[in-house]
């Protein structure tokens, strides 16, 4: 009998339990409902040995996303990376943690570089080779916004993945256009009359992406890796411009314990601050309901960047954040049924 040859050498690793949904732990030996990460032939796109901080949400998100994309494209994938933590911790010369063809050009141009690659593949008639651009929220929603919008408008065959950790972490935690109201960053310190980041109207890049009418937009959260994987897989089944924004807590920038990344991410989902949805051609098509609602307090409490919100006199900040969560819950109809709202 011929022995079975695995595509990638199976690692003799300890079998770990994999999380499958919001609350359950699966048996990794069961095929049903398992994450790609639970399989021995996972692509390992972002190899071990990189230099991310302990508990880095972005490393986790990127690994899940790119592994899934590799699996979905049979390995025919090129990845473009914007400048930022992900680039710096994964490719300090002469090392590289990437097992895919990977290119970093600049901070603000990942979408345009990826567009060039997509066109290059098309003209070389390599339609099977797919392109992903990825970056943090700074490189995507601030400095890279022009190139990103251009990529959407031309409907380039590129999936752009934004790992949103709500500030410029690589340069030392400065405010980005995705930093939430009240949050402390190095440039929005918790001092003065209005401590932390100001409350604006926010910049929702998924909504901006939807306004371009592109084929697919989704938000994801590393607290639910199977949902993230499903969204990446779906995105890779579609041609044209696609955008996925993944919510990735940053222990260093947020002042959370390294072991709490998933917990904090789940709290963000449960309180309604990070609605998970999918949209096709500008219309919302699916929403992930909140199974176990919580007030924003629980989410904010575990992060030092919001410590000042709990000080006397700053109650209005807490209320303002709760109001944003409530508005999201209403706008996206996030509660499974009204009764569940009283469970916590």
């Amino acid at each position: 009998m011929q022995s079975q040859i695995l595509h990638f050498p199976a690692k003799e690793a300890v079998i770990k339990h994999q999380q499958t949904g919001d609350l359950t732990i699966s048996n990794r030996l069961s095929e049903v409902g398992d994450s790609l990460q639970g399989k021995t032939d996972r692509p390992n796109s972002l190899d071990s040995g990189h230099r991310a901080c302990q508990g880095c949400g972005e490393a986790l998100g990127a690994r899940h996303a790119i592994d899934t994309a590799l699996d979905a494209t049979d390995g025919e994938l090129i990845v473009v990376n914007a400048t930022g933590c992900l680039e710096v911790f994964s490719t300090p010369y002469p090392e590289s943690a990437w097992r895919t063809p990977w290119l970093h050009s600049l901070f603000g141009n990942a979408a345009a570089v990826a567009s060039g690659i997509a066109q290059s593949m098309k003209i070389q008639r390599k339609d099977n080779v797919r392109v992903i651009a990825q970056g943090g929220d700074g490189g995507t929603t601030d400095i890279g916004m022009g190139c990103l919008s251009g990529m959407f408008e031309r409907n380039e065959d590129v999936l752009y993945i934004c790992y949103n950790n709500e500030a410029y972490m690589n340069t030392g935690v400065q405010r980005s256009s995705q930093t939430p109201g009240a949050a402390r960053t190095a440039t929005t310190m918790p001092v003065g009359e209005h401590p932390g980041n100001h409350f604006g109207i926010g910049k929702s890049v998924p909504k901006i992406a939807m306004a371009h009418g592109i084929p697919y937009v989704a938000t994801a959260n590393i607290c639910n890796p199977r949902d993230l994987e499903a969204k990446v897989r779906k995105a890779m089944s579609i041609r044209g411009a696609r955008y996925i924004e993944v919510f990735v807590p940053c222990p260093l920038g947020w002042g959370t314990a390294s072991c709490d990344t998933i917990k904090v991410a789940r709290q963000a989902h449960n309180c309604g601050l990070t609605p998970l949805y999918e949209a096709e051609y500008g219309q919302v098509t699916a929403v992930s309901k909140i199974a176990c609602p919580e007030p924003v307090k629980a989410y904010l409490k575990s992060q030092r960047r919001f410590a000042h919100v709990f000080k006397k006199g700053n109650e209005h900040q807490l209320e303002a954040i709760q109001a944003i969560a409530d508005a999201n819950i209403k706008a996206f109809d996030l509660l499974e049924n009204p009764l569940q709202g009283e469970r916590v």
Partner: protein
Amino acid sequence: MLKQMDGSYAVGEAVALCRPQVVSCYPITPQTHIVESLGKLVKSGELADCSFMNMESEFGAMSACIGSSAAGSRTYTATSSQGMLFMAEAVYNASGMGLPIVMTVGNRAVGSPLNIWNDHSDAMSVRDAGWIQLFVENNQQSIDVHIQAFRLAESLGLPVMVNMDGFILTHAYVRVDMPEQEQVDRFLPPFQPFQKLDPQDPVTMGALVGPEAFTEVRMLAHKRMERALEVIPAQMEAFANIFGRDSGGLVKKHYEGEADTVLVTMGSVIGTAKEVVNELRDQGESINAVTLRTYRPFPTEALKEAVNGAKRVVVLEKSFTPGMGGIVYQDVVAALAGTGIEVQSVIAGLGGRPVTRKSIRTLFAGCDQRTGFEVLDLDHATLDREVTRESAVLDRII
């Protein structure tokens, strides 16, 4: 084939003959006609197997070039002036990654004040970016040098910038000899990248490089640039064998032999300068003109050879650095250090001011009393009046 056409369309046709696979563009005066012509050729199917990308900015245009070149496609773009500065970050990036992109620059002044006319400020703004910089003198050279640029870029793994004077060349209708496709195909083989993004053979490009290796990486770029000094004359010879035309090489002497005074210049102004040199030589003056066709890498040895025996070299340039003076002048001074040749600096034609034969005659006439740099055709009365007025204000503040 002889054709009467404007400079931009001539460049567009020449680039199309080079079979680019990706052309990425963003409009800016006076470069626009170049990419317009390519867009038309792609749309009509005359330029087959080419993707024409309409980008959201020059920054995006150069970024798309980076992606497409890294993925193994022959890539082209064009820009001018503010556009060049807007893409500057990506311009450095393209050369740092050794991507053989070819870009035309329809040279134009950089604001403020806003000015759309010709000088060399844009090219000088990225002088140190690590691109090979070639300057052409007329539209025939524009065509010929673009065809050489692709082969040069791809054989060295370096991007090449072809500088042609905005409006003066881009918008001039002249008769040119457009090469045949078969000739170009003989000269320019299909693009074979040193390395590319390929899922079958993954590479990591654009890594973070620390102090322990960055200097070596930069020196490698320098070494590759230096190789261009050998490759350019060799490829020019190969070009001449197929097309029957010489197009300048590193530097081009107007007359063979030695002369007391040599004018060194770049771009289209050499046409006018040559006429004045002819006139003055007829009057018995010992004078010559030398064109720098290759500006980066700087052809030190070739220039030394070209001005050998001269008493003085006058650098006439359309670029200027406030607080210092001429830019090309500094390069020439450095190149001629130790030769005993006196180097003078003359700036002319900024923001499109015409450089006339009369002006160039005064340039030669002033050779004996020139100190510092001279600006041709400067309205001294206006300048002095404004300096006085400003000084009065500044004195109060200081």
